[in-house]
């Protein structure tokens, strides 16, 4: 057995790079939206900056659309993650990290350059 699985040879480098480009855009958008959502949550639930309604529930500050938008942007992000991950034929641990990066604040900005290195390394290995 070689160190690298033999299926690496069947990776389509062009498509994989395109998938990475899509993932990268969504990683930035999701990361930015998540920071906005975190800010909203802190303002709403910690500081009650928007006040509370008649039933005592905190009111939104920036707007309830933030959580709504993040949810759907995250769905799109997951699609790009799955696409990239399956084209690169990565293992389970890498997709778990990338899935987590969309919901843990700041993590997407840390993982995105790391994913870029994964792509470079694996594509070079596949061509060698």
């Amino acid at each position, binding site marked *: 057995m070689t160190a690298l699985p033999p*299926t690496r040879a069947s990776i389509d480098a062009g498509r994989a790079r395109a998938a990475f480009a899509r993932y990268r855009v969504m990683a930035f958008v999701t990361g930015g939206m998540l920071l906005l959502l975190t800010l909203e949550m802190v303002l709403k639930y910690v500081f009650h900056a928007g006040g509370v309604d008649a*039933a005592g529930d905190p009111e939104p500050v920036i707007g309830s659309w933030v959580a709504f938008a993040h*949810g*759907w942007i995250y*769905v799109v992000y997951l699609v790009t993650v*799955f696409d990239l*991950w399956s084209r690169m034929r990565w293992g389970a641990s890498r997709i778990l990290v990338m899935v987590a990066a969309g919901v843990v604040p700041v993590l997407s900005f840390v993982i995105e350059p790391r994913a870029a290195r994964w792509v470079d390394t694996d594509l070079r290995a596949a061509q060698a």
Partner: protein
Amino acid sequence: MPTRSRTSAWFAAARQPRILGLLLILLVAAGICVRLGAWQLDRAVERSERAALRAAEARADTAPVPLDDVVRPQTGFTQAMVGRSVEVAGEFVQGAAQYLVPEADPAGEPGGLVLAAFRVGEGAGEGAILPVVRGRLDADPADLGALAFRLSPGGDLAAPPGNVRLMGVLAGSEAAQSASGSDGTLGSISPGQLANLWGSPIYGGYLRVLEVQPAQTASLDPAPAPAVRRGGLPLQNLAYAVQWWIFGGFAVAVWLRLVRDEGRRLRE
């Protein structure tokens, strides 16, 4: 390594302990996602019901106001009028038939609401017909036909004659159902339909009586609070529920892809 068929490689890959372990984890994740989606839906329903109930309670708690202050005959009946506490003077129309509207009580006990025509005797609505639920009757739906006799003039459940003052809460029209009223029962309380049976002008909603002056002797239970029509489901919660289901499907897709790669590896 001998060349294996696609399918057998797939199953060989799927049976590996590592892949099975991942399946377990991903299935748990998918299960949690589906459950969270259902929870979001529950919360959406609960929230809209609570809001509608709170609004209706707030209106019912107030002292009764003259009917004229809330609604006029032949005008639209809005959701904001539901649950308003009102009082009105007039008399039950003796020539008009009473109807039974089958409605189980919250405990599931069969029975029906006694619906009568009330001619308003004061104010802007003088002379107009107000559909009135006089009260609730515990009865087996099979006996409803026989009850028509008790509800007719001279029966023990006939509407009392003469001037009375009613206090109660307003309720909105229900969608007319096909039941014609010919057997003494109606499928719903729809003033539009009642106008054909009792004549017009008629009010667009109806009154559930809580108190009659002078007091009635008939053996009717007070009508339960009008059913609060809940507002639409909050779209946001609905969207969250859908998202959770998508995440659940995502976990399953990840596993299938893992098995495929593993199977390909085994074949080569």
